[in-house]
C-alpha cells in the first residue's frame, strides 16, 4: 500500500487576530505552500479537508469552499471536518486515508477557528458546546468544569495534587515563551501558576488554555510523488483514532481517556514502535490535567504515575524521557479549536526537519507523536511521524 508523507506545513500565529477567517486561512495556506522545498502549485492538490467547529454563528454552511476559494484551490473537492477540538486531527487522518486509498496523490489538511470576534457575553457561545449539552451543560458544566471533575477524582485516586498540574503549566509556558507563533509567549513562575484565579475548582487560570484565533495547513503526498516536492519528507508512520461516550458520566472511569489509549495503541501498532521510541510529542493539553492523563494513556508513564512524571520534569525540552509540547502546547501556544490538530503537525514537521530556532529544537528528533482530543475525550486522533519511512 502507498506510503504518505508530509511535504509542507504552515500556520498563522495563534492569538487574538485582526485578520478574518479568509485572511487567516490564506496566510496559513501560503505558509504551507512556501514551506515546500521544490516547485509546488496549488493546482496540484487533488483533495482538501478543513477542520473547524463553528464560526461564532457566521458562515456555518460551506465554510470549506469559501476558504479554498480564497487560497487558490478553486475546484478542489473540499469539505469541513467537525469533531470538536479534534477536527483537524481527523482532517489530517482523512487526508492520509484519501492517499492510502489510491484516490489522491496530493491532499491538503488544515484547520481554522476564529473565536475572539465576539462580545464577552456572546463569547459564552464556545463554552461547553462539545459536551453532552443536554445533560452536562445544563448541570452547569463547561469544559473547565468537566476537566476539574477529572482532576479532583484523579487526586483522590492517585498520589497526586494540584502542584503536579502547576509543573505542567510552568513547563509549557517555558516552551511557548520561545515560540514566536505562540499565543502566550511568556514564562510563568511556579508560585504565580499555583496562585492563579480559580476558574473551576481545583483548576486555575494557569491550568486552562487560552481562547485563540488561528489557522494551520499541511500538505500530504503519496510516496511516488514525494520526490517532486522534497528530499526531506516527514513520513506518516501510523494513524490511530477512536471514540468514546460523549458524556463523562457514561464512562467507566473519569481519570483516563479510553479514546486516547485505543487511538495510540493503533498508531503504535501501525508504525511498529513503542512509546519509548518517541522523541517528542505534541499532546492535547487543553487543561493541564489533560496532559497529565495523556502521559499515561499514551504510554509515557504508568497508570497513576502521571503526577510523578510531571513533578520530575520528564517532559521538559531535551531534559526528560520525551519532550512534551515543545511548541508550548495548547496551554501556551494556544487553542484555536479546529486548527489545533494540524497545528500540532506543523510543529513536529519542523522539529523532525531540524528547522526550529531559538533554542526550542528537540535534539536528534527522529520520531514524533501528535495527540488531538475532541471535547472531554469523545474523539481522539493520534499520529506517529518520523524522518524514516519505516
Amino acid at each position, binding site marked *: 500500500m502507498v506510503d504518505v508523507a508530509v511535504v509542507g506545513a504552515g500556520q498563522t500565529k495563534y492569538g487574538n487576530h485582526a485578520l478574518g477567517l479568509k485572511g487567516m486561512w490564506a496566510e496559513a495556506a501560503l505558509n504551507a505552500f512556501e514551506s515546500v522545498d521544490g516547485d509546488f502549485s496549488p493546482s496540484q492538490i487533488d483533495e482538501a479537508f478543513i477542520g473547524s467547529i463553528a464560526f461564532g454563528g457566521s458562515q456555518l454552511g460551506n465554510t470549506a469552499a469559501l476558504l479554498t476559494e480564497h487560497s487558490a484551490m478553486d475546484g478542489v473537492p473540499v469539505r469541513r471536518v467537525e469533531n470538536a477540538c479534534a477536527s483537524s486531527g481527523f482532517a489530517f487522518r482523512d487526508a492520509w486515508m484519501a492517499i492510502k486509498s489510491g484516490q489522491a496523490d496530493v491532499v491538503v489538511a488544515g484547520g481554522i477557528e476564529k473565536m475572539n470576534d465576539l462580545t464577552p457575553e456572546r463569547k459564552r457561545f464556545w463554552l*461547553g458546546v462539545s459536551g453532552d449539552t443536554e445533560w452536562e*451543560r*445544563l*448541570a452547569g458544566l463547561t469544559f473547565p468544569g468537566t476537566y476539574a471533575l477529572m482532576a479532583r477524582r484523579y487526586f483522590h485516586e492517585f498520589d497526586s495534587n494540584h502542584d503536579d498540574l502547576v509543573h505542567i503549566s510552568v513547563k509549557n509556558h517555558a516552551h511557548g515563551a520561545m515560540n514566536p507563533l505562540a499565543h502566550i509567549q511568556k514564562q510563568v513562575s511556579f508560585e504565580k501558576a499555583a496562585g492563579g484565579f480559580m476558574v473551576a475548582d481545583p483548576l486555575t487560570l494557569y491550568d486552562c488554555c487560552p481562547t485563540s484565533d488561528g489557522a494551520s495547513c499541511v500538505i500530504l503526498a503519496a510516496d511516488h510523488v514525494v520526490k517532486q516536492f522534497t528530499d526531506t519528507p516527514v513520513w506518516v508512520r501510523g494513524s490511530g483514532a477512536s471514540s468514546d461516550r460523549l458524556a463523562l458520566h457514561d464512562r467507566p472511569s473519569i481519570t483516563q481517556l479510553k479514546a486516547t489509549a485505543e487511538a495510540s495503541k493503533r498508531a503504535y501498532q501501525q508504525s511498529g514502535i513503542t512509546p519509548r521510541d518517541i522523541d517528542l510529542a505534541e499532546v492535547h493539553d487543553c487543561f493541564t490535567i489533560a496532559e497529565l492523563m495523556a502521559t499515561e494513556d499514551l504510554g509515557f508513564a504508568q497508570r497513576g504515575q502521571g503526577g510523578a512524571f510531571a513533578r520530575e520534569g520528564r517532559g521538559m525540552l531535551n531534559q526528560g524521557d520525551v519532550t512534551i509540547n515543545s511548541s508550548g502546547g495548547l496551554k501556551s501556544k494556544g487553542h484555536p479549536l479546529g486548527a489545533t490538530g494540524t497545528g500540532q503537525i506543523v510543529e513536529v514537521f519542523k522539529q523532525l526537519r531540524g528547522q526550529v530556532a531559538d533554542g526550542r529544537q528537540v535534539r536528534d528528533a527522529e520520531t514524533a507523536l501528535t495527540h488531538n482530543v475532541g471535547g472531554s475525550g469523545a474523539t481522539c486522533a493520534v499520529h506517529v511521524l518520523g524522518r524514516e519511512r519505516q
Partner: protein
Amino acid sequence: MTSGTDVWKGYLLAWDETYTLIQSPFSKGDDRVFGADSDYTTLAIAALQHRVSLGDTIECISLAEGVNGSIFTMATDVDVADESTYDSCKWDLLIGDDATVVLVQRDVQIELPELETFVEVDEDFQLAIAGAWEKELQEAHVSQGAYVSSSQYNEGGVARMALSGQQFGELLVWPPRQLNEKGDREDGRVSLTPTGNVASWTKLSAAGAPSEFSLRAPLLGGLTTVFLDLDDGPKGVFLMVDDEENDVNIGDAVELVVRRIYAQEGMIRYGLRGRII
C-alpha cells in the same frame, strides 16, 4: 406514626393521613418567600413525592393555578385533572400566597399547623435573584451556543425530573438511550432511587458560567456541580441546590430534588439538583 413535622426535600413538612403541607423555610421580614431555585411547582412535586413515600397511591390530582402541570406529571407520573376527570380525582393541590402548598384529600376539613422553623434571607440577595429570574424569563433570552430546544428538553423530561432509566438485561441505564444494545426500541421505564455519593465535584467561577446561568451565577458566587455515583449504579452530573450551603466532599451522600434549573424563551426549565443529606 400518622402525623408529624420534618424537613423534606429541603422544605418544611407537616402531614397526617389526610394532607401534606410543604412550605419554604425562608422568610423576608414577616413574609414567607421561595428560595433561589424554588417555586410552587417544585413544592407541589415535593408534596406528591411525600404522599408516595407514605405508601399512598395517587393516580390524579387537581392542581391550583401557579403549578406547571406538564412538569408536575413528568416528575411524578401522576395525571393532572381536567374538567372531564376532576370528579374522579381524590386529591387537591392548593397553594397559599406564602410559599406554601397543601396536598389534601378532597372534602376533608383540616387545620394546618404553624411551622416555626425558617431562615431569614438577605433582602438584597432575594430581590437580585428574583430580578435575575425575571430577566431570564423574557421571551428573547436564549442561551449562547448550546441551545436546547423545547422538544429536546421535553424528550428528556421524565429522565431529567423522575430519574427514569432503562433496564438493558442486567444493566440499568440512565439517561435512557433511543435504542438498546440490540438495536431495538426500549420504552420500559425504571425509576432510579434519587440518592448517591459524590465521586467528584467542582465549583465553576461566575465569570465562566454558561449563558444559561450568567445572570444568576454572580449572585450565587459560582455554580457547584457534583459527579454522583447513584445508589442504583448509573452515574450523573447535577447542579447542587442554590439555597443551601454546599460544602461538598468526595464521598458525601446526596439526594436529588426537583428545582428550577434555568429559563429560556419564557419557559422555566426544571430538573434534578443535589442536596447533601
